[in-house]
């Protein structure tokens, strides 16, 4: 009730304001943060989720991608640890790239998608398939790109998004952008919190105990045009969160987890005719504290600090041929009770080239070699072509060799780590077809992947303790479909966006589907707009998955739907209010064994844009 009152108060207070003047400058210029994503991803499936899609989906990257991509998520209950599987690979084989920098944890190798608030990014891009030669370790199944694009000469705008939901869930995000011809500033602040004490459907009295969480993040980006050839760019992000880890139907939990991540990147961008150079340095830090009993002050912790220096030179040899040379150095320091104090330095040289042979056909080649003392590093490469057969039909082909390096935990965990581990390697092929017809777009991609030396923690036959080794081999194949459609008649607008993935991911020895990889996953988003009114329906289907348990072998498939309506009360500026019903049909489901997800629940949102 208090939430509702507060909501109404805000709504009426803010909507009546008359906002400051909105100046318009026509000469807009956008500086991209991830040059390789833009320039050297022409032969693979790339899907961009823009800010309007981002805004519709709740605070975390899990929800955004679960409903808008083929990625499958294994979520330990709402808001808890969430790890993806992309094309049948493991969570550690999906790279998360922040403004061109790989931010997967150096400690455990993965990104928890519930610790990435999506507010504050201009777009989130999903790039399927291998990308190790550009983004380094982990880009095996694919990569997720979080980008801030700095705009010049686009005046001032800001937006506030508030959301109140069931289980005392609250989220707020404020973002501003200001730019003139020489300076561009972006700043964002977001806060999410929830009691998260939903009832377990199908039980008489069980609730999601000890599942409360909060997180705060700050984003900033700054661009300065020194002159027409030189620019300075700065990107910064801070995330701080505390989550209590909820229990399972079989075991209650008392634990909590705190983490703080910082990311800072500075770039000097110089361009002169055919030459473009980017000199980047980045500093990333991650640290966590794990409290087995949240009531005590006793915790286990670890920290990793990464320093990256990168020089990137791009040269247009010919109007149809571009070459790109990148040299980079990464140093990581890890500290923790379980890993001690360890250092790792990696140097790498990358060469990228694209050639447009004719108007319809072209190819790309990427080659990368790393040098480090820690492991044997293979030569990574990728070759791809595109063929625009007609204005309606394009074919893409890509083959690549990718890898994932062992993490600090894999190498150094006290008593269990294995310092002789080598990187995982994978070979993959994909063929994509894209069809365009009026406002229809269909993309169908078939892929095959062979992963070797996969690092797996398995129980040791001698004592049953889990230890990592380069033992597993996996082959994955399947297909992904994306269908989009838009229609506009007078004041009526509608669009459809739908994904489907079919994935077989087999253990090379047992020929069984890997655990927590569904063979089928589909989602559908329908949106309808009439003047200031909007309606949308989201649907998610996840096929059954196998679990490691012999007794409970399967987590059943589930269908979840969300529905939302919104109305824009503003005249000159956006002042949109909305209501969403999540899990509309009250589906009883689990994403992970013994961890029930919430039943039907509600949220109200308010978006102001000035």
């Amino acid at each position, binding site marked *: 009730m208090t939430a509702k009152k507060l909501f109404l108060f805000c709504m009426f207070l803010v909507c009546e304001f008359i906002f400051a003047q909105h100046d318009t400058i026509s000469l807009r210029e956008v500086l991209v943060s991830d040059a390789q994503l833009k320039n050297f991803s022409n032969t693979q499936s790339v899907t961009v989720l823009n800010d309007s899609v981002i805004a519709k989906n709740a605070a975390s990257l899990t929800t955004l991608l679960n409903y808008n991509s083929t990625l499958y998520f294994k979520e330990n209950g709402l808001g808890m640890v969430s790890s993806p599987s992309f094309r049948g690979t493991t969570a550690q084989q999906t790279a998360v790239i922040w403004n061109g920098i790989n931010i997967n944890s150096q400690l455990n190798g993965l990104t928890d998608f519930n610790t990435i608030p999506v507010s504050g990014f201009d777009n989130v891009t999903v790039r399927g398939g291998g990308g190790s030669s550009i983004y380094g370790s982990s880009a095996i199944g694919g990569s997720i790109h979080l980008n801030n694009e700095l705009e010049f000469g686009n005046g001032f705008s800001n937006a506030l998004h508030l959301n109140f939901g069931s289980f005392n869930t609250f989220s707020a995000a404020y973002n501003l952008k200001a730019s003139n011809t020489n300076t561009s500033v972006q700043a964002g602040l977001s806060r999410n919190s929830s009691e998260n004490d939903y009832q377990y459907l199908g039980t008489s009295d069980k609730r999601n105990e000890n599942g409360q969480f909060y997180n705060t993040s700050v984003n900033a980006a700054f661009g300065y045009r020194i002159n027409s050839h030189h620019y300075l760019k700065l990107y910064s992000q801070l995330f701080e969160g505390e989550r209590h880890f909820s229990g*399972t*139907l*079989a*075991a209650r939990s008392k634990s909590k987890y705190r983490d703080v991540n910082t990311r800072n990147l500075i770039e000097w961008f110089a361009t002169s005719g055919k030459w473009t150079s980017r000199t980047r340095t980045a500093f990333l830090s991650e640290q966590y504290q794990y409290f087995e009993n949240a009531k005590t002050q*006793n915790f286990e912790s670890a920290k990793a600090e990464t320093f990256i220096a990168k020089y990137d030179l791009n040269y247009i040899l010919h109007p149809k041929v571009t070459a790109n040379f990148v040299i980079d150095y990464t140093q990581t320091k890890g500290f923790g009770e379980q890993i001690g104090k360890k250092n790792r330095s990696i140097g790498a040289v990358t060469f990228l080239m694209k050639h447009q042979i004719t108007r319809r056909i072209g190819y790309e080649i990427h080659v990368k070699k790393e040098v480090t003392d820690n492991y044997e590093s293979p030569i990574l490469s990728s070759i791809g072509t595109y063929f625009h057969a007609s204005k309606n039909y394009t074919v893409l082909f890509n083959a690549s060799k990718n890898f994932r390096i062992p993490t600090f935990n894999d190498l150094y965990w006290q008593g269990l780590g294995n310092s002789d581990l080598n990187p995982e390697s994978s070979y993959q092929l994909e063929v994509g077809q894209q069809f365009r017809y009026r406002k229809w777009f269909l993309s169908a991609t*078939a892929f095959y992947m062979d992963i070797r030396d996969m690092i797996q923690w*398995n129980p*040791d036959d001698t004592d049953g303790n889990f230890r990592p080794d380069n033992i597993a081999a996996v082959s994955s194949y399947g297909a992904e479909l994306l269908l989009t459609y838009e229609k506009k008649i007078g004041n009526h607008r509608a669009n459809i966006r739908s994904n489907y993935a*079919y994935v077989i991911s087999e253990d090379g020895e047992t020929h069984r589907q890997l655990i927590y990889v569904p063979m089928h996953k589909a989602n559908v988003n329908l949106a309808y707009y009439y003047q200031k009114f909007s309606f949308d329906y989201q649907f998610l289907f996840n096929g059954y998955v196998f679990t490691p348990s012999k*007794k409970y072998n399967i987590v059943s498939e589930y269908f979840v739907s969300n529905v939302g309506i919104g109305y824009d009360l503003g005249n000159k500026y956006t002042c949109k209010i909305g209501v969403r019903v999540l899990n509309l049909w009250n589906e009883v489901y689990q994403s992970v064994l013994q961890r029930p997800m919430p039943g039907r629940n509600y949220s109200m949102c308010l978006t102001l844009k000035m």
Partner: protein
Amino acid sequence: MMKFIKLVVAALGSALFFASCSPENDEPTKYVPLEKYDSGVLVLNQGLFGQGDATISYISADLSKFENDIFSLANPNVIMGDTGQDIAFYGQFAYIVMNGSNKIEIVNRYTLKSVGTVDEGFSNPRYMAIYNGKGYVTNWGAGNNPSDDYVAVIDLATASVTSAIPVAEGPERIIENAGKLYVAQTGGFSFGNQISVINTATNAVSTITVGDVPNALQIKDGYLWVSYGGKPNYASAETAGGLVQINLNTNAVAHAYAYPDVTKHVSNLVIEGASAYYTVDSGIYKFDLSANALPATPLFTTTSQGVYGVYSFAIKLGRFYVGDAGDYENSGKVHVYSFGSSGESAGTLVNSYTVGVIPAGLYFNL
């Protein structure tokens, strides 16, 4: 438009070229459970940590009847829990200690029907002893805190934890004798080398130093026998296992027997008659209680059953019972061997049973 549809169909065809398959979903024939689980052994299968899939199997004393997952058969709507650790019997009840769930499930020991749950007062519970209407459960506490370990005291009449007796890090097996509790301080998340002695009248705790990582306790004729494993090969310095004999009147070590070879890690001590039996890797060793040194060679080995290391071990009903955890992920096995009395040779395989994941304990419900 037609051309477009053809293109779409062709694309779908080529992208979805790979055949789909679905899981085998055969309807099982109606199974009638045994429902009575007396006169036999309950095998506690730990399950996989975090999966909440511990189970209990039953093997009848005459070896003719066998059933898996009997807790679920008796209680279809109760989840037994995560990581089954120990079972203690008291009267008509069985107390099942669930390490991962931090609880004890109480069942009727003969029907396995659920009676209740104790789910407050535990932190990483391990093993349970019963004395004078009270249950004593060892608890490791939080993994990174060496000083929060204790023995929880349960009032069995009210099925609730009434107090906690602090002990050193990693209290494991617990046994009662004449009002005193003897607790093997395995070390939990590190390596211990003591036995804690708790006077149940005063809850006063004293200690006896034995070898590294004491893992099993037996009482025989006024003596406490302890098997200790030594530190494993992944410790900074591996140490050998052995046996220690303690005089229960004085709580002093009477004899200590150690292997010279640091790779010999002794566990699963059982005293039967005038001999001690224990295991090292896949071998079953026999030690005459009056002998001067530990035997170098096993009585028999379980290697022909593919056992890499004996996980659980018992001697009862004139047989050896060996729990084999296999790869620690899939179903384990229980092998039954002849004891070797009445002229037959010891260690002849009598029968094998495929049980649940990680058979951690064998409890005779006789």
